[in-house]
């Protein structure tokens, strides 16, 4: 049983999203007896050392063989296990595209694919380890639920929720170690239901993953300029919370922010959802654009992509002033 104490929440934050997943994993066999975890040579990086020590017969390190990992996980799901498969998001998705399409999209097998360090957080290793297209690919598949938690508390909640779903799930983990805390205590995490973290009448900022924190900070900066922004944590990209998106249409401007390409990500999902709506506000999509940057540390890459809070606030402010 996981306790959402302030000390545990601080611990998860210190460990980062990968370590927080590992802590959540420790409790999974309590509710899902047939939980197994597969990893492509990143057992330690996935925070799974303690899980391996506690449940040595439930961990399968397949080596650097991600495509095989998906196939093995799918077979285990077919046999009634609840398999979580972990590796870097870039390898978990793009490298395994065919296996994921067939096993998770077509066969609808309830594999829980955990994409570690999505976005830029391990960008110091170069574009090979940047994962900026994973949501675009996973969104194109039928059946797959996509979860994108905002902090480490939400990561724990999302991992527990994923285990309970009968569907295939892509759990996209962003952020690094010392991941700032947004959810300071236990909260209700309902798959497919966005969370309003801040109210505001002028603008709706819909953010996902690591960008929720930056959106909150950007909203504070905008308030200093006289613009009031609502901030939504869209922790589930698929299925999208249509009610929340419809409600956002009452604002003058919708902004989506994500640590992902502006093409095909959560922003794309919102735009597609609103495409046939005859009356809707303009939509500013913020995310990674253009060519892959060179290797760099996480703060540098966020700044390079215009995804720091002041940059987000600046883009929103300029756009709002141009439009209204």
């Amino acid at each position: 049983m996981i306790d959402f104490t302030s000390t545990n929440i601080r611990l998860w934050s210190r460990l980062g999203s990968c370590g927080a997943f590992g802590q959540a994993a420790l409790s999974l066999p309590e509710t899902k007896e047939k939980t197994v975890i597969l990893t492509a040579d990143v057992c330690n990086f996935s925070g799974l050392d303690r899980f391996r020590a506690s449940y040595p017969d439930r961990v399968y390190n397949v080596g650097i063989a991600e495509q095989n990992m998906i196939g093995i996980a799918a077979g285990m799901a077919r046999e009634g296990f609840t398999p979580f498969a972990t590796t870097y998001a870039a390898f978990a998705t793009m490298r395994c595209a065919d296996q994921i399409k067939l096993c998770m999209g077509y066969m609808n097998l309830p594999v829980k694919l955990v994409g570690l360090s999505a976005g830029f957080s391990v960008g110091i290793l170069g574009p090979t380890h940047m994962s900026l297209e994973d949501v675009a690919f996973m969104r194109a598949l039928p059946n797959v639920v996509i979860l994108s938690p905002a902090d480490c508390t939400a990561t724990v909640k999302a991992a527990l929720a994923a285990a309970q779903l009968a569907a295939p799930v892509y759990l996209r983990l962003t952020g690094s170690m010392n991941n700032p805390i947004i959810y300071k205590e236990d909260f209700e995490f309902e798959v497919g239901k966005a969370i309003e973290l801040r109210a505001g009448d002028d603008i709706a900022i819909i953010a996902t993953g690591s960008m929720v924190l930056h959106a909150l900070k950007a909203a504070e900066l905008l308030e200093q300029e006289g613009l009031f922004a609502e901030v939504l944590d869209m922790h589930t990209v698929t299925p999208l919370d249509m009610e929340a998106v419809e409600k956002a249409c009452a604002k003058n401007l919708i902004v989506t922010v994500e640590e992902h390409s502006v093409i095909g990500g959560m922003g794309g999902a919102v735009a597609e959802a609103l495409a046939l709506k005859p009356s809707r506000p303009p939509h500013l999509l913020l995310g990674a654009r253009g060519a892959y940057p060179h290797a760099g540390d996480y703060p540098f890459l966020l700044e390079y992509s215009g995804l720091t809070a002041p940059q987000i606030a600046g883009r929103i402010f300029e756009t709002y002033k141009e439009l209204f």
Partner: protein
Amino acid sequence: MTNEEKYTKAFMQAFDIDAENVRTLEFQAIPAWDSVGHMGLVAALEEAFDIMLEPDDIVDMSSFARGKELLAKYGITF
């Protein structure tokens, strides 16, 4: 509660051990003080003393005794 008591309690809480086993404790001397346990200790100390430990100090916190020395930097005396 004195700082000594708060400090000892943080170790007991982080590693689920008795006070009598705390004072000579060193990193990785018991299974609970692994890398995750280490961050659990950091979280417990930060909560207890309302501080944020610097990365170098987190790495340097190799024993019960060393931790006390490091906390002096944060104005915590024993």
